[in-house]
């Protein structure tokens, strides 16, 4: 009867079960988890077990102990023995306190199991031979890659190698793997054509804040409970950083953190239930859940797509006009020279308040009263003259907006203008997507157009015929890159061209012959040799020449920091990787070592030296090697701003194992007074990360309409709908795990769009129908959910899904200052699909996910 086999009983871990601590592999929240492993056939009892609980009576609600159907799996280790695996939320973690999201709750069933849902993991290196893949040895794979890279660099230069790799933490990678990527590509190969997993270039998503002297991870999770006002700006926390919302923002709204506030606030300072401002074109569940709790303390503002920086500047102008800032703070902590530019261009002090707000209303579509309300909640001093405490959290709605640099800068500056940084209950930073774990040698492009940039657009390079080799690691650009229908069409053709050239006269067997033919193909065709390194086969991988199987989360010891506290913890190894899969750092190490040998044999010592120091023997060795990149960290607390946000120098895997779910907050210092490793709770209490410690202001651009890639659709009746994209609560990224889990694949079977009821009526469509969404960039087929999340005229689509991508529709526009795409704004037409709807709609829910009433 049930759509899939359910369990009504779970194995009990015995007292002597192996235990590990880890952190969830999914979102930026980074919830703590405990792992138990014990042989199948062994069992604890209700009264005597590794949980240390009496399991003979049901747990009371909200006990903080959860062990559900999705938290158990059976795994096989290299010794061939089957083990039970239980991964349960950690009550002792101050991040999640036993709570968990729909993603984290599946950490166990997503683990590799040769008898379970995830059996399709990649197990061996694969080489395309003819029309299909055949397993090859690591030795051959390494030889092929190293030989081709060397020959390509020697003949065509380093820029003939393009790459797209993860730069984040968690999801099976961490500081360890990032250091290895950096050593191979930044120290060794030194190509300029680098790109990060989710975008076409190698750039920060938040140079607009960093170049002001404010790293984007500056607040602590406690600040979400201590703030008078939390602002979620283009950040759907309930669905994308769920535990930040339910354990920290929600209690604040409910008034459950008032006592904490009284302890942290100044004497006599008012402490009340929190308020929430959500700035998002959609009325998503982050809005409706908050409104169900305390509607009177929730403000939802819905700006027109692409206009947020104008809104931020208008709110800042209201605050300025009312004197809701601390003059002393501005004078002592910020650079008054650049402040003039901010006053002129962003606050527009040469114009009247009325003029500025009237124009802002017209551009953003946001009423003046809402701007006024937002300014009051963000900046108006409380009774007794105490400054407001506002925590502003922004994410892809801002980062992947039009004009990435100005959007981020405007929000950062609004918060600094109103002194909302460095104090309990304040901060201004990212919500984050993944957790972080970045340590690499310096990148070729240090910053935006104002600081040595912009970086190269690798997508345009590849589609324009650039590069001979393209190495993709831990990402699926066929789904995730902008304008992806065009991108994959060109890459598919270039890969096929090379394959045809190689196969002419028969498929080669000897790797040396293969290398010879590839190099010949480089000379005679525009063919591309694509390498894909991942844990499952991907959409991109289907066109690759070579597939490299990587270890996943839990199959190597990794370290990362979460985004809301920069909390460094170990994500320990508790199981073996399938088949011959290896940690990412190990794969890169093997290629680096071989390149060094090849260059040494060729007598090119200079090139050989570029690939030195890559022969790490363990996860911890790579971690420690990376730590030297951070420089001196023996400094007092007052100088913490000088440190890199993720500095972990002095920390070892062993130390982190001892700290378990407690972890330590980066940047980590060696305190000069005590000699102890010391974490940093929140940043920028004393100074900012600039040479003189002062916050650097920036005068943002004036509104000048939409870029050509979008302007062509304005007033064109064929494309009547504005189109934006985002995540779903239910699934993680490309659904690389989720597509295999029935709980997820039944509930979210197809790529989908959300359409307002008025538009649905006009189009003659209803929930459960299929449509084609189209524009001049491409087309996507989607399932329709009709709900009131979008206003009429705006359509939302899941950004990508295992079965298709909405990035077929996104344009190739990037911010000229940062090369950051505008994934979240274009225009489309919608054509109802008249065939038989997909079978999947019979078993999936079509109810509105933003209706919690």
């Amino acid at each position, binding site marked *: 009867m049930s759509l899939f086999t359910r369990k009504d009983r779970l194995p009990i871990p015995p007292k002597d079960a192996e235990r590990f601590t880890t952190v969830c592999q999914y979102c930026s929240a980074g919830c703590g988890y405990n792992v138990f492993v014990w042989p199948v056939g062994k069992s604890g009892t209700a009264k005597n077990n590794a949980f240390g609980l009496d399991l003979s009576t049901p747990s009371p609600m*909200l006990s903080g102990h959860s062990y559900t159907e999705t938290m158990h799996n059976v795994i096989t280790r290299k010794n061939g023995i089957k083990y039970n695996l239980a991964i349960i939320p950690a009550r002792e973690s101050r991040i999640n306190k036993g*709570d968990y999201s729909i993603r984290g709750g599946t950490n166990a069933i997503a683990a590799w199991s040769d008898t379970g849902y995830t059996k399709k993991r990649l197990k061996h290196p694969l080489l395309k031979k003819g029309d299909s893949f055949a397993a090859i040895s690591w030795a051959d794979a390494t030889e092929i890659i190293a030989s081709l890279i060397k020959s390509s660099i020697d003949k065509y230069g380093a820029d003939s190698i393009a790459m797209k790799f993860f730069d984040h933490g968690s999801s099976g990678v961490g500081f360890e793997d990032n250091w290895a990527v950096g050593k191979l590509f930044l120290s060794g190969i030194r190509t300029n054509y680098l790109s990060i997993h989710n975008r076409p270039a190698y750039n920060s998503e938040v140079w607009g804040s960093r170049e002001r002297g404010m790293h984007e991870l500056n607040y602590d999770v406690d600040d979400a409970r201590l703030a008078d006002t939390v602002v979620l700006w283009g950040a759907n926390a*309930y669905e994308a950083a769920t535990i930040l919302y339910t354990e920290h923002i929600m209690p604040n709204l409910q008034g459950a953190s008032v006592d904490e506030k009284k302890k942290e606030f100044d004497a006599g300072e008012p402490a009340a239930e929190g308020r929430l401002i959500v700035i998002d074109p959609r009325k998503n569940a982050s809005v409706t859940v908050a409104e169900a709790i305390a509607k009177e303390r929730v403000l939802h503002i819905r700006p027109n797509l692409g206009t947020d920086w104008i809104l931020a500047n208008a709110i800042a102008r209201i605050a300025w006009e009312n004197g809701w800032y601390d003059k002393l703070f501005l004078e002592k902590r910020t650079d008054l020279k650049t402040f003039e530019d901010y006053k002129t261009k962003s606050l527009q002090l040469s114009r009247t308040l009325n003029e500025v707000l009237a124009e802002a209303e017209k551009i953003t579509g946001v009423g003046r009263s809402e701007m006024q309300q937002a300014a009051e909640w963000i900046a108006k001093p409380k009774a007794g003259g105490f400054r407001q405490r506002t925590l502003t959290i922004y994410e892809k709605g801002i980062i992947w907006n039009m004009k990435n640099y100005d959007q981020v800068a405007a929000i950062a500056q609004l918060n600094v203008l109103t002194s909302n940084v460095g104090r309990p209950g304040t901060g201004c930073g990212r919500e984050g997507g993944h957790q972080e774990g970045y340590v690499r040698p310096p990148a070729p492009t240090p910053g935006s157009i104002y600081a040595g940039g912009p970086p190269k657009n690798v997508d345009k390079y590849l589609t324009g015929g650039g590069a001979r080799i393209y190495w993709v690691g831990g990402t699926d650009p066929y789904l995730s890159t902008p304008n992806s229908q065009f991108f994959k069409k060109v890459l598919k053709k270039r890969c096929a061209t090379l394959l045809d050239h190689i196969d002419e006269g028969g498929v080669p067997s000897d790797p040396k012959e293969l290398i010879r033919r590839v190099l010949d193909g480089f000379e005679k065709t525009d063919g591309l040799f694509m390498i894909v390194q991942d844990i499952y086969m991907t959409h991109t991988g289907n066109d690759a020449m070579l597939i490299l199987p990587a270890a996943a989360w839990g199959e190597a010891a990794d370290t990362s920091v979460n985004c809301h506290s920069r909390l460094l913890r170990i994500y320990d190894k508790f199981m073996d990787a399938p088949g011959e899969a290896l940690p990412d750092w190990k794969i890169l190490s093997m290629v680096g070592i071989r390149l060094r040998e090849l260059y040494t044999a060729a007598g090119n010592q200079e090139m050989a030296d570029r690939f030195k120091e890559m022969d790490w023997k363990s996860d911890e060795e790579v971690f420690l090697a990376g730590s030297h990149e951070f420089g001196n960290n023996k400094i007092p607390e007052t100088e913490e701003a000088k440190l890199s946000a993720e500095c972990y120098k002095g920390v070892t895997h062993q130390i982190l194992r001892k700290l378990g779910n407690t972890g330590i907050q980066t940047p980590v210092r060696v305190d000069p007074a005590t000699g102890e490793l010391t974490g940093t709770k929140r940043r920028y209490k004393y100074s900012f990360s600039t040479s003189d410690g002062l916050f650097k202001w920036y005068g943002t651009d004036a509104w000048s309409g939409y870029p050509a890639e979008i302007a062509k659709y304005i007033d064109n009746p064929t494309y009547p709908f504005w189109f934006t994209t985002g995540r779903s609560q239910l699934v993680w990224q490309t659904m690389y795990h989720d597509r295999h889990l029935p709980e997820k694949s039944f509930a979210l079977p197809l790529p989908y769009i959300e359409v307002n009821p008025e538009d649905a009526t006009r189009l003659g469509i209803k929930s459960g129908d299929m449509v084609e969404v189209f524009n001049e960039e491409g087309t996507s087929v989607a399932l329709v959910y009709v709900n009131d999340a979008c206003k009429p005229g705006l359509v939302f689509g899941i950004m990508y899904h295992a079965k298709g991508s909405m990035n077929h529709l996104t344009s190739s526009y990037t911010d000229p200052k940062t090369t950051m795409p505008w994934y979240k704004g274009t225009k489309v037409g919608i054509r109802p699909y008249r065939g038989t709807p997909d079978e999947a709609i019979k*078993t999936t829910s079509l*109810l509105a996910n933003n209706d919690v009433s």
Partner: protein
Amino acid sequence: MSISRRKFLQSSTAGMALALFGLSGKAESASGKKYPSLRIGNIRELKAGEPVQFNYPDSTSPCTLVMLNETAIGGVGTLRNVVAFSSLCPHMGCPVNYKSGRFVCGCHYSMFDAAKNGQTYQGLASQWLAQVTLRFDKASGNIYAEGVEGLLYGRISNLNIS
């Protein structure tokens, strides 16, 4: 946890009557024990959209029986629109309330589609709501609970509680 206790009390399932249990359930649990067969209502007494509370498979497990306005996965009755589910959210055990075709948790707002096997279509519950297996006796109109598909919140085994 920082959940409003008042919210919990409002949606509490307190006051539910403990029904009498039969002895010969059909379904067998993974533990080898048999689920009891329990008459939980009669189709002529049910009104669409009006939930009825009962306990199953024992007195500490609150459940909800409801007639929907649509055919449901696992539904019984001539229109296959009568379903029953555990009333405890599989996420952290808070009560779920039936409203307009779905169950909503008052603690973290997980939502489960009653016609679609109790699937989580929004919220935090990685496990779907546990659905009670029903048997419908056409002649009498009686509805019997005869098993549970899915783990009940807070238990290591649905039937192994001693």
